[in-house]
Each structure stands twice: as structure tokens, then as C-alpha cells.
């Protein structure tokens, strides 16, 4: 038995299945409205802009900038005990929506609002490849 404590995993339900299936191919997809072309995240049943329910999963660039962040100095789940202090970051995608995530290859002290980042997938389990981001030079 591995002594490594498993981090909490997202639940893959019907609504989110296309997101996680794309993630397995290391592709980032978001719902896009067929009527008004706006993107939404997190996933939901309608487009909040025009309240249409005609949404389609669409591959996005995976590029964005750091919108804001916070640093945890305590582990509120044992699986994060070895990682404190660690940052949780909100990335604003070029398509508009913002995603909560972690930054790889970047210490909390080096994070800056507005820094350009790109998506990279962390292989957590066979089913879950978690989208994270890393800094890019632009």
C-alpha cells in the first residue's frame, strides 16, 4: 500500500464528462454558446449571457494571464501537507472565463498579476488529467 495520501479528485458527472475526456487528450475545452458565441466556465446548463441552452464543447487556446492568487500556509487537507506554502491561482483565459488552478514551475513569490501562462495537464489518475498552468514568455 502506498502511504501517499490522495488529493481530493473532481467528480466526473454527465455535465463535466466532455471536459475530462478532452483533458485525457491534453486538450482544454469549454462550453461555447451557439447563439452568442460566448464561453462559460465552470460548466452549466445554459449560457449566462443570453440564457440559451445551445452550448457546445469547444477547444480553447489554453493561454491566459494570472488574474489573482492566494497562498496557503497551512494544509486544510493532509494531501497538501508537503506543499505548503502553495499558491492557488485564478487564470483569465484569452477566451474570457477564469479558471481556478495551480501554477507549475513558479514559486509563490514569483507570481505576478498579468503574467502570461499556458495550460499543461497533470496526469493524476487514468481518468483525471488536471489542467494546470505554467508561465510562458511572450
Amino acid at each position, binding site marked *: 500500500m502506498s502511504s501517499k495520501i490522495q488529493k*481530493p479528485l473532481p467528480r466526473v458527472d454527465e455535465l463535466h464528462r466532455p471536459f475530462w475526456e478532452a483533458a485525457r487528450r491534453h486538450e482544454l475545452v469549454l462550453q461555447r454558446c451557439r447563439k452568442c458565441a460566448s464561453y462559460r466556465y465552470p460548466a452549466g446548463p445554459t449560457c449566462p449571457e443570453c440564457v440559451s441552452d445551445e452550448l457546445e464543447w469547444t477547444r480553447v487556446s489554453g493561454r491566459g494571464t494570472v488574474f489573482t492568487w*492566494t497562498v496557503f500556509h497551512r494544509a486544510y*487537507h493532509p494531501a497538501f501537507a508537503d506543499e505548503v506554502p502553495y499558491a492557488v491561482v485564478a487564470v483569465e483565459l484569452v477566451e474570457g472565463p477564469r479558471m481556478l488552478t495551480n501554477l507549475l514551475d513558479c514559486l509563490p513569490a514569483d507570481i505576478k498579476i498579468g503574467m502570461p501562462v499556458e495550460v499543461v495537464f497533470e496526469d493524476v489518475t487514468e481518468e483525471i488529467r488536471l489542467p494546470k498552468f505554467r508561465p510562458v514568455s511572450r
Partner: protein
Amino acid sequence: MSLKDKSAIVGLGYTDQGKVPGRSALSFYLEASRNAADDAGLSIKGIDGIIIEPCPTDPRISAFGLAQEMGLELKFGADEQVQGASAGAIMQHAAMAVDAGLCDYCLCAFADTSYSSPSAGGVVYQAGGGINAAYGMFGVAASYAMIARRYMHEYGATSRQFGAVSVAFRHHASLNPRAQFRTPITIEDHQESRWVVEPLRLLDCCPVHDGGRAYIVTTPERARHLRQPPVYIMGFGQGHPFSDPLRRKTLTVTGAVQSGKTAFGMAGITPADVDVCAIYDAFSFIVPLQLEDLGFCKKGEGADFVQNGRIMLGGVLPVNTSGGLLSEVYLQGWVGTHEAVAQLRGDCGPRQVPGARIALLTSSGGALSEHATVILRR
């Protein structure tokens, strides 16, 4: 027709508060209710309307269950969940109910046992789940930290400036026998306190507690025949940005913009007319943010505004004279409702704002997600 001055607060109920182990949430609701009726000089049997904010640790308790325990058959009742904004939002609903004649005396109550209950440790305030937990995002404080970071980025506000809020409210708490934290602190104490979630330090954050609160709303005509000087509800409003902060256009404009605009419009006054404020302060930095959104200073100048004793007793705008959520006790918006009324009655002893005639209170829920403003006068 405007609801300005069409209702009044006539009774305040408090209970033991802070760390009060071994008590049920229902017992806090009941004690606060009895005490509010006693304070008003009203028989509890005269209560014919009840609105409660559901208890975070025992959400099964309803207005109707509370009525049953007091032997009351209600004409009007509701369990009103507006998160931390409930205390102010419920006051508005009660004002409408008594003005419409749906009930004569509307009791409004809240209880929390988050410090001592089996689901203690503030578990209910630490909710984390779904995809966020996979990234290590736990607790509502972290959402506030993300908003604080944007506030610092957009307007140059600093952690040290936030400390002035905590220092001011602790000073007020030192004058309040009910307050949980009464030892004065300095800016240095604030700056040396540990990170909770950066950029928020321990002294930027409220704790969780046990206790109950209640107040009674009635019509002005009825209010004049009761024991306490009536405190009239002059104006009120609400503003509710999206629940998820990351889905808002901006993180640094709160619901106070709309709730304040509606409330000042109804009251027919401006911020310059306000003598004392009770601003929701689950976290220090949300005080300057709301003050600027309410128009007490220009947008982005809130962190400067709260310096140099301006929000302390004796300053231009005393705020949270009880110590607020940061230093009196964490009972959500019910701390502000009670202190605002107590100030207008002149009941605050060493922390009384001399001659206070108009008070403004706010309550705020989620991660600055729901917002209520109420303006009161004596």
C-alpha cells in the same frame, strides 16, 4: 409609496456569546427572542410574525419550529437565507411585512453554534469541494484573499493599511463588555500575525462563535407605546453580485454600490449625514471596500480613508463601535444590526457616539456575494 420611516426597531435580544459550549442552537434562538421581547416591553405572545436566518450548524430549525416552541400561531413567517447578508435583508422584509399589515410585531432571529457544536471548528465556513479542492482551494477566506489581492493590485492598498481597521475595531471592543477580544493591538501586532491565507493575516480575519441574536420590527404607531425609544428604518436596499467571485466582471466592486444607492435614495440623505456605521467586517479589507462603494470616499481611496483614526470613536466616521465581527463576536450581520440600534438609543456607554442620530449598517454574504444596506434614525 416609499417605505421610509414606515417601520421601527423596538427590541434587541442578546445571549451569552463567544465560546458557549453545551447549548443547542434552538436555545439561543429562544433566549434571544425572549430577551428582544423583554427589551421592547412586549409580551412574547404579541409576536405574530417571525423571520429567521437559518442556523449554519443546525439548518433544520425554522421560523415555524421556533414559533411552535413559544406557543405562537403566526400570521407571517419565513426562513430567509441571504447568507451573511441575512440580518440586513431580513430587516427589510420585516419592514415590508409590518407596513403591509401582514403582521404587527415581526421577530427576526439568528443563532450559531459554530465554535462548540459537533460540526465545530467553523467547518460550515470551510466548505471546499468539486474541482477547487483538487487545487488545494479550501475555505471562504481564500476567496476573500483573492479579492484582497486584486484590491491591492488595482488601488495600491497594503496589508498595513488593512491593519488600521483591525486596530480601530479592537480599540472599540476594549470598551465593550460583550466583546470576545478586548486587549488592544497595534499595527505591528497585525503585521506580525501569521498568514491565514496570504495576503490575509490572522488579525484580518474574524473567528467563529456561538450565540444568538434577535430584534423586533413594528409600525411607528405601535413603536411609540413601547419601552424603548423607537429606531426608525429610513431606507434600505440590496445588491447581489454573482456568488462565484471569479465570474464577476470585477472583484473590487461590491454589492454595496447598488444596496447603498437604493438605501440612500429611499432615506433621502447622503453619506455626509451618517453619524455612525456598522459595516460587515468578516475580513478587515472589506470595510474600506464597502465604505468607498457606499460613497463615504472616492473609489479606490478606502484604504487611505480608514487611516489616522477616521473610523475610530472620535473620528469623522466611527465604524463598528462594538468591535464588529473582528473583535466583538462573529454572529454574521446581527452584530451590526444591534450595535447600530444601540448607538441610536444612546445605550453604548463609554463607546457611545455623542448625539448619534443616523446610522448605516451593512451585511454581506458569501464572498462579497450578497449585500444589504439599512439606514436607521432615532
